[in-house]
């Protein structure tokens, strides 16, 4: 037979429990509707708890003088099915479905948190999934690029500004935020992690180079290289006064090659490739704790001889840190002779406002087989490396540029 609970009622809005004063029933008693079966007391009033149907008392779960919480099962009645139908009472296993007993199959299941269900119906009459903790941004996706620049929230931006940090400085941090973004908490724990490490103050020159390189690195840069036989250049150079530096030969050859095909040095802005207006090419000069890049103007229209005096003067000024500020502005490409450090290859990075940088490595003696003499002959060979913005130039275009430069440099007297 169905069993019906006798429940501790809610006796007043702020009452959480009540004390059993007297049990008016005993096991085996038959109760009738509206009979007061148990007397309870709260700090406000004394009340009789009622039964609502005819039934036999089969369990009493409470003792007199003891307090029980609202909703507690105080006892159990055994009731006929007919009596349940007549009164609308619920058997004990149905009661847990809620005060008013929505049919159990209508109650959506959502784990342990009843709050999680309090959401709205969908258009088609179904239910939304129970809500989980989600980022507060709704409707629009957080623009984080897992492979690219991090999204920096206004709060993150403020903290970074306070600390003097740039976006690139947080690249070492694994983000735990939406879409992998670095949160302020991630930043703080990273800073704590590196707090005890040794450090030195970066010079203004270092910071300026860092800034330029960081900005440049936002682009997809690629580097290609090819060998360059240096002997003719070296021969030609020996006959010159003053002697042009090897980088100047490259600079002049680059200017000629770009003047023949200016789009290679173009700059991508939005949907346009902006072409160079003048072939002003810089030369990288290593100074204490940094690099300066004086610009040689109109390198496509002046001969090597005409350029050498300007070039030497600018290099000297750079080394003396006395370059006028306009001498480093508005170049379209840069030449760097890292070979002076004995390096045999490199991937130089163009300035952020330039698409190209051409590098020259150290020349080395190599045996080259001569069909003419049938012997190995010694030649001086260097590597020229071209780093380019792959949005503007492809590997083929970069290769052709290097080949043309190499070709031009085999006739240094015509430069």
């Amino acid at each position: 037979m169905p069993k019906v609970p006798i429940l501790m009622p809610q006796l007043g809005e702020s009452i959480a429990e009540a004390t059993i004063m007297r049990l008016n029933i005993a096991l085996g008693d038959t109760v009738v509707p509206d009979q007061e079966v148990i007397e309870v007391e709260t700090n406000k009033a004394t009340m009789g708890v009622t039964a609502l149907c005819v039934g036999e008392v089969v369990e009493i779960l409470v003792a007199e003088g003891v307090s029980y919480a609202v909703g507690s099962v105080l006892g159990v009645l055994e009731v006929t099915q007919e009596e349940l139908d007549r009164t609308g009472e619920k058997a004990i296993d149905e009661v847990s479905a809620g005060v008013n007993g929505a049919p159990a199959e209508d109650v959506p299941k959502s784990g342990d948190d009843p709050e999680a269900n309090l959401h709205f119906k969908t258009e088609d009459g179904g239910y939304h999934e129970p809500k989980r903790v989600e980022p507060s941004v709704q409707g629009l996706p957080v623009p984080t690029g897992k492979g690219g620049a991090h999204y920096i929230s206004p709060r993150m931006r403020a903290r970074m500004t306070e600390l003097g940090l740039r976006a690139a400085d947080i690249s070492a941090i694994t983000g735990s935020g939406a879409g992998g973004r670095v949160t302020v908490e991630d930043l703080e724990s990273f800073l704590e992690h590196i707090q005890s490490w040794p450090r030195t103050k970066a010079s203004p020159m270092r910071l300026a180079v860092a800034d330029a390189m960081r900005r440049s690195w936002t682009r997809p840069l690629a580097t290609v290289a090819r060998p360059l036989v240096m002997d003719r250049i070296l021969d030609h150079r020996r006959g010159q006064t003053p002697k042009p530096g090897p980088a100047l030969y490259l600079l002049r050859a680059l200017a000629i090659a770009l003047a023949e095909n200016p789009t290679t040095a173009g700059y991508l802005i939005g949907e346009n490739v902006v072409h160079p207006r003048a072939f002003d090419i810089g030369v990288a000069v290593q100074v204490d704790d940094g690099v300066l890049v004086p610009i040689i103007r109109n390198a496509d229209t002046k001969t090597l001889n005409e350029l050498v005096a300007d070039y030497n003067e600018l290099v000297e000024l750079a080394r003396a840190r006395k370059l006028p500020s306009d001498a480093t502005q508005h170049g379209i490409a840069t030449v760097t002779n890292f070979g002076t450090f004995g390096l045999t290859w490199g991937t130089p990075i163009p300035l952020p406002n330039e698409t190209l940088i051409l590098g020259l490595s150290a020349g080395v003696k190599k045996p080259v087989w001569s069909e003419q003499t049938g012997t190995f002959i010694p030649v001086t060979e260097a590597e020229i490396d071209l780093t380019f913005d792959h949005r503007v130039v492809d590997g083929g275009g970069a290769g052709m540029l290097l080949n043309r430069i190499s070709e031009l440099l085999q006739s240094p007297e015509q430069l």
Partner: protein
Amino acid sequence: MGNITDASQVNANDFDRDHVRKVFRSMQTARILENKLASLYRAGKIVGGVYLGKGQEAVSASLASCLTRGKDIFAPLIRDQAGRTAFGEEILDCTRTYLGSVAGPMRGRDGNIHRGRPAEGMPAMISHLGAAISLVSGMLLAKRIKGELDGVVGATCIGDGCTSTGAFHEGLNTAAVEKLPLVLTIANNQYAYSTPNERQFVCQDLVDKAIGYGVPGYSVDGTDMLACIKVMKDAADRARAGGGAQLIVASMLRLTGHGEHDDGSYVDSNLRNSGLGRDSIEVGKSQLVEYGFATTEEIESWATEATEVVQEAVATAQKESAPDPYQDDWAAFSNPANIDFHN
């Protein structure tokens, strides 16, 4: 201006037999229903409060029995189960609202006595006392504007405590100014929750207020069913005939706590033992038999019938679904374009 009627004398020949029987049956059904509500509450079946009208059945039922549903307006307060039944409210509306059935008129959005069917002339009360006085007046005003006011009455009930509110003053004065057919009934049951009358007002008799508002006032023993029937009919007839707002003060004792969470232990035992403490249903029963409106057997059979109706309404409501937060449309506006939050 403001003549005061004291209905202490009644003559049985003045009464319509069917009307008297209807009033009593509403009182009796309300009592049986309210006893069941109390029982449900004490069995933990009702969430929220239970507020009963025990002791005030005669006042409430005799007022609403003068009204015609579909034409007149009745705005009950918390102790007006008898009036609701007399006005024609289904017992199911009551059990469904108390038990939180989604099939009830309030669909689980409001509970217990905060129920109504405003489109059928019975507003759903808010908890703020006196708010219905101007509300009913406005409903009457609309009928006037539409040319439908002829022969119509609007009635509402308040308690002694409500006479202290600004809404009472503003509402009654405004209805008087507009000469609207409002029958305002004060059930002076001696307590507002636990506050006795001497802490509520110091005028000698609440009915004296009628003079101040320039409306007819009536004083009646609220435990005397026939006296109540007479006074209510007089007042309603006068309003219907263009006599403007009417103020009735019916005195009795609340025979229950403020709500079922309250045992009313603060009620003065002298009042319980005075005439005010009489149970209007017991008085009504004797009047029915004494004046030949009904026999004891009839009264018993009505009780049996009412008990069955109540039990069935409770059973039906208990078997129905509770409101489902997934199915509620959560719309506070009738025009979907006004809904601001779509979360």
